[in-house]
């Protein structure tokens, strides 16, 4: 009896977690605010091409001619980055822009594969994929090709032959780290004593953000005071910095691989009475460009925030509308880095994630 | 010795020691081909120890066992099975979520070799032969308890068992199911299987068994042919009193009670474990429930206290109808209950003597009115003194006290609540003689002070000394109420034994 109850509960848990993923994919029916990124010029263009000569001006009338786009993505709850990414997709591929958007969000590769399969069966025109894992996609992409569906990869690469997709719009994680370290070098400090707080070891973001700094440590230009992973955990980052402070070792740079960990590090500095930010003793660097983090920059409490841009939708939309094949299959999304001395409120509004 | 060639199983001079206790001393047991042999004795007489030695659960500390005249060593249940000794326990030890066939072949060496279809066929054949109403493909859990038990027996039969041990097989079966089981047993008997039958139901023994072996306090009392041992004598042998000796005891003085003095009255009270019964007790009266173990005496008093799920009946206290469905209700109406199984239902082993003493009173006072430490200490000290509890200190964990002193602590727990009606179920079990007497005296003193007491003991002598009225139970029914001149052991024995016992004299 008890066994049965337990299994019922397990089943319930499963159902709930499935409902969770299901809920987040409810986005395809919600009307999306198009004000910020909607490009009205293009909308009319689309309406024009689909125009049969009667009511050219009203895009709503052109609903029969909407371009069907299926997006397979990770759920917005994954991270602030993903949340912005999902919102951006929904905003760009809106009905007002001439698209009919279908979405599926999952952290699991097999569920994503199933969703992609579903979109192919439904007969979408374009398939956009940010895969949970790099492997296992050959067959589905071949089927898409046979069905005449064009595939764009965004954010993450997949291990398949280039011929299977039109283009991949991705971030170059290493470039992100390079940009940040270059900025740090440009500060021309007398010496660099760096506390390096890493993200979850082995993740793309961690590898990309660590590489450039490791080169500096190796070349001796910068001193590694400590290099520890806090696995994206703010509280852990605080502990790491505290332990350095308590040991009495001197440092003048904190390089945290995301905003949260930078915040944790700053909490430790604040408690120890160590000044930071513009004009402070310690340079604070973070990544991700959360809105709240950019505001810390604006306040001069931090010095630098790098971004792995989550905004690939517009690039893909442009490619679809132009109908031309890109010069290179791999399109590197432009990365940004913000300096506390030059950041503006407008930057925060445009590029900040969250809220 | 002449019978040796016919005997299937012989156990000679079996000894089993547990730390501090001699569970079996020099016990002999003989089982012949094609007989049903009852193993009888009160609780703690050594029946289950003997069975466990035979089935390899325990190792014997002396003596020898032979099957078919060949000496064997049983070191594990597997050994026992290999020697043709199979056991079917009271609780079904099969897997209810597997099919009947799977249950019959699971865990057997040949089960790998037999294809699924094959052993379903084989199972159906055996079931058919034994007349067991089950299909091999049925899920075992969907069969009645009786059928499940029979499947267990069929499994044993198929394993070529020569000796089949049935440990309390009938305790959860109804009359019809018992009959079917007995038919099966007779069938097996005809095939030459020797059956050892352990039960508390006397009448069943007389219905099915050829011989009876009686154990008492780990010693062999004797082996008897069933037809030569009247029921009342069997009871006497189990309890350890000769009939002549029994008659010489006198009961306590008879007291007279007015009906207006009734403290507690129940009519057709029943619980998940107790069949409906009527019962009343007067203020200041000491009564007893007697009967063999499993007769329903404990279940009945548990129903009074609301210890099991109450199914029906009405209860009046001092003439007022009340509802008692759980222990706290009973406690609030002034009823206390010292449970039969001290370890399981009485002591909170890791807590101190002090905490154990105040527990019931604390519960009655309520969650938000804790008894202060100093108050608790003075209560504990008082009762440690009054009941002469031997403990290193009031902070000693109760688990490290001797059985008798643990029992006194539990008694103190209930006395502290100043009950109007105290139910004591086997308060003297496993306790030294001195403490037994102390507890008996205490019961009589409580009665003098106007407390009603229900006293249960396996020792009838003790009951006669303390109770002015005895309610006798057999097979879960009240079969008699004895008082006054009827309060002597002979009469009690006869009533407990029941059946044709009266004619045997």
């Amino acid at each position, binding site marked *: 009896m008890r066994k049965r*109850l*337990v299994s019922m509960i*397990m089943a*319930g*848990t499963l159902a*709930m*977690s499935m409902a969770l993923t299901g809920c987040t994919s409810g986005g395809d029916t919600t009307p999306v605010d198009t004000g910020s990124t909607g490009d009205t010029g293009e909308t009319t263009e689309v309406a024009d091409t689909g125009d049969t000569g009667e009511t050219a001006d009203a895009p709503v009338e052109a609903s029969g001619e909407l371009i069907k786009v299926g997006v397979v993505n990770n759920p917005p*709850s*994954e*991270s602030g*980055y993903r*949340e912005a990414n999902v919102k951006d997709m929904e905003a760009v591929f809106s009905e007002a822009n001439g698209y009919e958007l279908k979405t599926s969000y999952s952290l699991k590769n097999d569920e994503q594969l199933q969703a992609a399969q579903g979109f192919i069966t439904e007969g979408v025109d374009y398939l956009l994929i940010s895969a949970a894992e790099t492997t296992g996609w050959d067959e589905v992409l071949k089927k898409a090709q046979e069905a005449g569906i064009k595939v764009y990869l965004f954010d993450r690469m997949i291990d398949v032959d280039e011929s299977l997709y039109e283009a991949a719009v991705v971030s170059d994680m290493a470039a992100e780290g390079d940009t940040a370290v270059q900025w740090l070098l440009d500060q021309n400090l007398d010496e660099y004593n760096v506390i390096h707080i890493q993200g979850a*070891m082995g993740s793309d973001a961690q590898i990309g953000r660590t590489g450039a700094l490791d080169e500096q440590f190796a070349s001796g230009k910068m001193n590694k005071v400590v290099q*520890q*992973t806090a*696995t*994206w*955990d703010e*509280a852990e980052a*605080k*502990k*790491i910095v*505290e*332990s350095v402070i*308590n040991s009495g070792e001197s440092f003048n740079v904190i390089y945290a691989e995301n905003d*949260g960990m930078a*915040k944790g590090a700053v*909490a430790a500095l*604040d*408690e*120890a*009475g*160590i000044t930071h930010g513009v004009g402070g003793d310690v340079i604070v660097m973070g990544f991700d460009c959360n809105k*709240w983090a950019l505001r810390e920059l604006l306040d001069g409490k931090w010095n630098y925030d790098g971004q792995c841009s989550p905004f690939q939708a517009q690039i893909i939309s442009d490619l679809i509308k132009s109908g031309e094949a890109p010069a290179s299959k791999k399109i590197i999304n432009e990365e940004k880095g913000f300096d506390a001395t030059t950041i503006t409120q407008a930057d925060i509004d445009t590029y900040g*994630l*969250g*809220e | 010795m002449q019978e040796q060639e016919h005997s299937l199983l012989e156990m000679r001079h079996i000894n089993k020691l547990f730390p501090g206790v001699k569970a079996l001393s020099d016990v002999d047991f003989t089982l012949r081909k094609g007989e049903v042999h009852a193993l009888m004795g009160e609780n703690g007489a050594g029946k289950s120890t003997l069975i466990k030695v035979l089935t390899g659960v325990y190792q014997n500390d002396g003596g020898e066992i032979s099957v078919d005249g060949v000496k064997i060593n049983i070191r594990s249940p597997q050994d026992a099975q290999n020697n043709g000794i199979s056991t079917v326990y009271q609780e079904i030890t099969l897997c209810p979520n597997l099919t009947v066939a799977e249950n019959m072949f699971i865990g057997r060496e040949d089960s790998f070799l037999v294809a699924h279809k094959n052993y379903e066929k084989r199972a159906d054949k055996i079931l058919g032969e034994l007349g067991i109403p089950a299909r091999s493909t049925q899920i075992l859990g969907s069969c009645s308890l009786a059928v499940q038990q029979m499947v267990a027996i069929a499994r044993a039969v198929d394993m070529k068992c020569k000796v089949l041990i049935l440990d309390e097989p009938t305790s959860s079966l109804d009359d019809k199911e018992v009959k079917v089981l007995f038919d099966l047993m007779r069938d097996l008997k005809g095939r030459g299987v020797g059956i050892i039958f352990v039960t508390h139901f006397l009448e069943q023994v007389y219905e099915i068994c050829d011989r009876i072996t009686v154990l008492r306090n780990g010693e062999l009392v004797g082996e008897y042919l069933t037809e030569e041992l009247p029921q009342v004598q069997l009871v006497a042998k189990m309890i350890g009193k000769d009939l002549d000796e029994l008659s010489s005891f006198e009961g306590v003085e008879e007291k007279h009670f007015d009906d207006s003095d009734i403290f507690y009255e129940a009519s057709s009270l029943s619980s998940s474990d107790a069949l409906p019964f009527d019962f009343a007790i007067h203020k200041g009266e000491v009564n007893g429930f007697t009967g063999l173990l499993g007769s329903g005496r404990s279940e009945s008093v548990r129903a009074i206290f609301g210890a099991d799920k109450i199914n029906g009946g009405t209860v009046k206290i001092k003439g007022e109808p009340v509802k008692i469905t*759980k*222990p*706290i209700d009973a*406690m609030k109406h002034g009823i206390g*209950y010292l*449970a039969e199984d001290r370890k*399981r*239902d*009485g*002591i*909170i*082993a*890791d*807590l101190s003597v002090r*905490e154990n003493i*105040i*527990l*019931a009173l*604390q*519960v009655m006072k309520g969650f*938000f*009115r*804790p008894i202060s430490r100093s108050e608790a200490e003075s209560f504990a000290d008082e009762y440690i003194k009054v009941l002469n509890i031997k403990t290193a200190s009031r902070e000693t964990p109760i688990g490290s006290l001797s059985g008798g002193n643990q029992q006194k602590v539990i008694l103190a727990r209930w006395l502290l609540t100043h009950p109007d009606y105290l139910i004591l179920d086997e308060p003297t079990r496993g306790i030294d003689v001195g403490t037994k007497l102390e507890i008996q005296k205490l019961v009589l003193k409580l009665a003098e002070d106007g407390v009603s007491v229900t006293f249960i003991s396996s020792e009838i002598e003790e009951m006669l000394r303390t109770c002015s009225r005895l309610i006798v139970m057999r097979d879960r029914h009240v079969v008699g109420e004895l008082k006054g001149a009827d309060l002597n052991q002979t009469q009690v024995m006869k009533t407990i034994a029941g059946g044709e016992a009266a004619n045997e004299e």
Partner: protein
Amino acid sequence: MKNKITNIFKGGFGQLTIPIVAICMLVIFNLFRDPSFFSVGITHNNDGNIVLAGNLISIINAASELAVLAMGMTLVTAACAGQDISVGAAAAIAGSAFVKVLKSGPEITGFSVILAFIIACCVAMIFGAFNGTLVSVFNIQPMIATLILFTCGRSIAYWINGGASVPVDSPIIKAIGSFIPGIPVPTPVLIVIVVAIIFKLVFHFTSLELFTQSVGINGSASRLNGINATFIRLLTFVILGVCVAVAGIIGVSRLGLINHETLLLDVEMDAILAVAIGGNNLGGGKFKISGSIIGAYVIHMLTVTLYAMKVPSTDVKAYKAIVIVILVVIGSPVIKSKFTKFMTQMKNRKQEVAMKGN
């Protein structure tokens, strides 16, 4: 005096022997390694307050959430003979609710913080009652019952604020998470003291301790003594709920940020460990809250020691596991009885020698 010392060797602190020995071992180890590990200094923090600083302060400060959770976990363990593995997820929910309430007002005031605290407590108590009902009414093993919230808790937390990391900035929040102006001791440490005192008071003014232990040691006997075991078990989960809310709020306030994915991540295992290191039987029964608190400090002292030794944080968990295995094995009944046997043997031998000497 001598008596006392031998008593300690015989387990004179009783249940607390293991955690106290563990703390002593860590202290001695650090004294040999680097005596300055224990130096406590006074500095001005960035808000201009005079505050205490040093590894010791870091340890007792960082262990605060764990200490609070361990207290509640001790009760649940004692009554239900099992542990709640959803405390981390539940704390994320409580923390999110706290932030949600604060964010829904125009500005953060003392009143809104109190309101947010109460609502967070209520939310956590409801989830505690959910777990408690599964355990006490439906008789599901605690670890399995709480697996549900463990699985979905952080997703629920995400729904509440709908964002990955939401900041809350206010001097009041900062005062809760780090220092109250004028008081040099970190506020979380003070909160632990307050919670511990509240537990002490609850034990003093109710029968919770006695009933919890009775239910945990012998449920059947407790029932026959009129204790409502179901209610007591449920109650322990609700109390743990309050602890979860407090821990979640400390965590949020410490950083001025709610990150539902990382807030008190993996804390449930540490909380169970704290209970175990505290000498409490994970199978329920007698308990000592103080043991669990010390257990929490042992765990963090270990972490901070390893960080001070610059052990890579990826390896910290492995080292922690080794130390904990040693502690738990030392505390196991097998070793304990062996030790007692050894001690009595030694005593006998001593007596023999003394006799011969005479």
